[in-house]
């Protein structure tokens, strides 16, 4: 046998073919690289952090027609001034009946009744959070306006904590979802497509090594994995300042094991299917529950306690939990034993079952 260059060997050729087939499909590139970023941008904008809305307060005064301060009795004018000067609330004027309706329909959080002598009465539902806040704010405005001074001097330090925003929650989820999608789709679809076109059978008539054929999928998967992870995390970190608090090497290890685990699932799903339609149905059947239950867009803890053990066994739940723990809390991989065990468990079960069931024609 003559010595051949590495690139002429079948493993290199098979892996190259995977690359070529993938990069020559613009739609695959879009779904793998562009779509997750569009999703992140959309969700980031929709759920961006902002200050809570200012409470809306209705003002009810006797003779509301009077608008110029000089015509109003002094005690009432003092109250109205102190309310108007407070920028933390929004006020509007009502008479008795329209004010009551505004309160009832939620257009205002609280009604303030003022009389000529400067007496004050609040009307509100204390079980509504915004009404309660409005009560505190309007009372502070009126009391301070009347000359109250705070006996204790406090200093405030305002912080916006990165890692607690929705975008920080959703970027690791999108990464997990992407790892799942490209692992299951990328491998499952390509194999079943080859099988349905009798290409797999044609390869079986050559001396091609079966293990190299399967290995070429994993190798190309890993190369694209690096690109996918860097695109999404780079985008999240640069544009939204999503924190990366954990060790990079451990993050890479989590991504690698997750990608292999989903690849094993893809292989298992594709092991028997004969048509692309058939395998698409199977893939959706496997992925749909994880999209919903595994905490991609919202925390999986929202589901009832009775289904939690099942949710915890889904591979994507563990992947998302591990990614979030690493990125947002800087948790060490050694403290993520359960999650890593689930990921590796699926990896082993998936591969063993796939190799046992795999049909080469």
């Amino acid at each position: 046998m003559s010595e051949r260059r590495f690139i002429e060997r079948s493993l290199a050729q098979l892996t190259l073919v995977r690359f070529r087939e993938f990069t020559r499909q613009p739609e695959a590139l879009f779904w793998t690289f562009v779509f997750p970023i569009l999703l992140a941008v959309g969700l980031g904008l929709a759920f961006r952090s902002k200050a809570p809305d200012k409470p809306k307060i209705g003002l009810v005064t006797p003779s509301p027609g009077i608008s110029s301060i000089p015509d109003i009795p002094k005690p009432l004018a003092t109250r109205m001034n102190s309310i108007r000067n407070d920028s933390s609330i929004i006020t509007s004027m009502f008479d008795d009946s329209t004010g009551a309706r505004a309160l009832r329909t939620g257009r205002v959080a609280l009604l303030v009744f003022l009389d000529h002598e400067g007496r004050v009465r609040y009307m509100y539902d204390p079980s509504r959070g915004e009404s309660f806040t409005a009560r505190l704010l309007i009372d502070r405005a009126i009391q301070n306006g009347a000359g109250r001074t705070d006996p204790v001097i406090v200093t405030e330090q305002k912080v916006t904590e990165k890692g607690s925003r929705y975008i920080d929650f959703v970027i690791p989820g999108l990464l997990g979802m992407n790892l799942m999608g490209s692992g299951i789709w990328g491998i499952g679809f390509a194999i079943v497509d080859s099988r349905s076109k009798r290409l797999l059978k044609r390869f079986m008539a050559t001396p091609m090594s079966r293990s190299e054929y399967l290995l070429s999928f994993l190798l190309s998967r890993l190369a694209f994995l690096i690109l996918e992870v860097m695109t999404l995390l780079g985008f999240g970190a640069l544009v939204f300042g999503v924190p990366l608090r954990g060790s990079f090497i451990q993050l890479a290890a989590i991504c690698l094991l997750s990608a292999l685990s989903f690849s094993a699932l893809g292989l298992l799903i594709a092991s028997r299917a004969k048509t692309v339609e058939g395998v698409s149905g199977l893939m959706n059947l496997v992925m749909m529950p994880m999209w919903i239950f595994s905490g991609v867009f919202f925390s999986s803890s929202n589901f009832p306690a009775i289904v939690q053990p099942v949710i915890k066994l889904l591979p994507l739940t563990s992947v998302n939990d591990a990614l979030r723990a690493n990125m947002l809390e800087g948790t060490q991989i050694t403290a993520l034993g359960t999650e890593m065990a689930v990921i590796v468990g699926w990896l082993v079960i998936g591969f063993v079952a796939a190799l046992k069931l795999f049909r080469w024609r």
Partner: protein
Amino acid sequence: MVTPGPALAVKGLKKSYGDVRAVDGLDLEVNSGECFGLLGPNGAGKTTTIEICEGLLERDSRDLEILGMTWERDGDQLRNRLGIQLQDTQLSEKLTVTETLMLFRSFYNEGREVKDVIRLVQLDEKAGARVGTLSGGQKQRLAIACALVGDPELLFLDEPTTGLDPQSRRQLWTLIEEFRSTGRTILLTTHYMDEAEKLCDRVAIVDHGHIIALGSPHELIDSIGASIPPPPPRASSATLEDVFVALTGRTLRDE
């Protein structure tokens, strides 16, 4: 290069799918260096027979030797020495002609240069074109090229010219004759009797899973010659296809 003894020897070949006996006691011996044709109507068992010989299907019987080897014992070695074209393979449309052949070449320990094979099947101009852009005839030539790139001793062709225009057909005939002229062996199936007559040293007619006639095309024609009245005398022995080729030329129409 050429192994002494028959290139392929099968005795009492059997294959059933459930209740259906696709191949039912078929005996076949293909000599080294000959071009052997399996003829027969659809469903006669030709493809099943050829796929068993290619090692793609399990068989229910025992005796099967190819190049003096058996699938059970020498599978890897056999796959290195056989060239195969299947009826229904669709090669990856995203790859180019050269990339496809480089992939197939990489599977074999020894074989031919990709460039040489491309020239042999006259795809030079399409070497960089995606498979998806090729015409039917070009795709078929590429399929044959994939079978030749491992430099096989024995070539299996399953209906290689079905659906091709006369020009492409004749070009493939030339390829097959060239391969045979190097002393190597071909087993092909076909529905075209003129093709079998032109290419094959011997043919076997298969029906209901076994061979009902065997011999050189001339022997077979002579064997029934007495029972069929001779055709009315004609001025020449040319066929309508010869007229077609004479009028439209021999150059391939691939665009």
